[in-house]
């Protein structure tokens, strides 16, 4: 099998898996429904069925897909940016920073919208970008970026942000379910308005990432070599870091911290279709969405009451992280 047929197979399988996941998600829930019910509903409108199939389940599935795609694309960008396969929005601290930003704006009662952007999303973005810049500065002193330093700094900054988040949450009265939501993530209360808030920004970031994918390929050769080949390194780096932070912050502001998606998915995709960044960015988005869709299905069905989705993604992602770390040594 040559590379081209392999890739065709990859795309076909991925789209089929995504559609199957979407279909399963719409049929699965605490209220028992069958494919027959769904067909019946498509023929004849019913108020209660509409709420269950469209307002609750489909909105949830679409949001899970979008967030998975955004986290995975963010991870793919960060891995290219740091030239390191272990980077991901959770590991480098963006996600935890974004959660801190979102919770801080909630706690301070900033509920306004700025340019149609909810304040919560804006502070999440600012805090996420702040943390990742800080991590970058702290770990790249004296010019070169050491991987161990980067990971440890990211993990420490993330832990600090999470502890501040917990502190803010426990000052409030309804703290427990809020803490679980922000620190472990959930799509339980997903709604179409959230899909509407995330989708345009995700698409914008995806287009920008695809546009600059060639420059990311050059960055893989090292900044000096890339500059010599005509890549405006400083600008490209700024745009990519902004896009990765935006994607992670958006995801966190609607679904809390969901770790490791951005770590594992780009890896799998790279193994299957290679490291070329245009294909990787697109493939990672599609695969990340599909991955999180199935994780959410598991979170909803494993136990009688729902599991936070971060529990599932960490159960899959953390062992993989350890494996990567081990292989590197």
């Amino acid at each position, binding site marked *: 099998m040559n590379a081209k047929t392999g890739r065709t197979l990859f795309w076909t399988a991925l789209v089929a898996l995504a559609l199957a996941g979407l279909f399963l998600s719409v049929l699965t829930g605490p209220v028992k429904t069958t494919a027959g019910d769904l067909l019946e509903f498509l023929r004849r409108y019913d108020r209660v069925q509409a709420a269950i199939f469209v307002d*609750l389940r489909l909105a949830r599935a679409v949001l899970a897909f979008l967030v998975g795609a955004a986290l995975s694309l963010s991870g793919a960008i960060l891995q290219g940016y740091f030239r390191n396969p272990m980077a991901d929005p959770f590991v480098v601290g963006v996600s935890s920073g974004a959660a801190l930003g979102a919770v801080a704006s909630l706690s301070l009662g900033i509920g306004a919208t700025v340019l149609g952007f909810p304040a919560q999303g804006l502070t999440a973005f600012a805090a996420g970008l702040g943390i990742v810049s800080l991590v970058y500065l702290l770990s790249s002193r004296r010019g070169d970026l050491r991987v161990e330093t980067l990971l440890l700094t990211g993990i420490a900054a993330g832990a600090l942000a999470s502890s501040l988040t917990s502190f803010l949450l426990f000052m409030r009265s*309804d703290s427990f*379910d809020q803490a679980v*939501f922000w620190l472990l993530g959930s799509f339980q209360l997903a709604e179409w308005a959230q899909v509407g808030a995330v989708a345009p920004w995700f698409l914008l970031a995806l287009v920008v990432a695809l546009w600059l994918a060639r420059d990311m390929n050059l960055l893989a050769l090292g900044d000096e070599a890339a500059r010599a080949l005509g890549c405006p390194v400083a600008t490209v780096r700024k745009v990519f870091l902004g896009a990765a932070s935006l994607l992670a912050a958006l995801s966190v502001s609607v679904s809390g911290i969901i770790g490791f998606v951005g770590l594992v998915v780009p890896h799998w995709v790279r193994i299957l279709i290679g490291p070329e960044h245009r294909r990787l960015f697109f493939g990672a988005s599609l695969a990340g969405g599909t991955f999180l869709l199935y994780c959410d299905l598991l979170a909803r069905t494993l136990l009688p009451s729902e599991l936070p989705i971060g529990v599932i993604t960490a159960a899959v992602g953390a062992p993989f992280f350890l494996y990567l770390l081990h292989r590197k040594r």
Partner: protein
Amino acid sequence: MGRPFVLPAKAPERIVSLAPNVTEILFALGLGDRIVGATRFCDHPDGARAVPRVGGLVDPNVEIVRSLDPDLVIGFRGNPLRVLERIGKLGLSVFVLDIGESLEALPPLIERIGAVTRTEERAARLASSLRERIGAVGAAMAGIGARPRVFVLLYGQGLWTCGGESYLDDLISRAGAENVAAHLPKKWALYKREQIVKDDPRVIFVLSKSEADFAAGRDWLARGGRFGSVEAVRTGRVHRLDEDAASRFGPRLVDVLERMARLLHPERFGEGP
């Protein structure tokens, strides 16, 4: 939820209750057969056990609530606000009640539930009978001199007790006694073993689900807990309060008040000391 609730024009016929005390009040208002969904903790009166479950107090399931197609959802503080908001966004009418810090808030709470369910008359009757019974206990305690010191133990894990912000603290005052943990500015708090020995309460109330749990709690106080020196334990003034009745802000709280008052001051109720 910070929004004015518009009273329904006609009596709701399909009600979902998201808290056990709300379920009890609905049954007391004769609305038991209109409840189409309740939490897994709604077990009183017996009829409530047969109602379909929508989840728990902190994890009511939005999809199940929606599938029951209710025309009124009654939530309570303790339900996560975000879940209540999500239910409201599905177009269901959601009425949210706050918990009171004193028994005084109970009759108005019942009247508000009466208003949203259009059972105003029955609610007014229930509220005024509760007010009368609360007033009667107050009258019996008029001019009381010595207030015995009381410790409330929520038997189970650790020395949980009710602090000064709990409505049980209010019940204790109305029953003519003084809660040793009243200085703690909380609803529920963990108490210290040494502090109980030092406070030396004259009476201990053990909140327990069953007589067997109560017996275990009383034995633990006497032996395992090493409270042998405490007056209540020495003189055998350790009494049971029904945990569900005492921990739900509903009509049975008045039963609890009457029981407390009679146990603390039998002489005031024409009974031998």
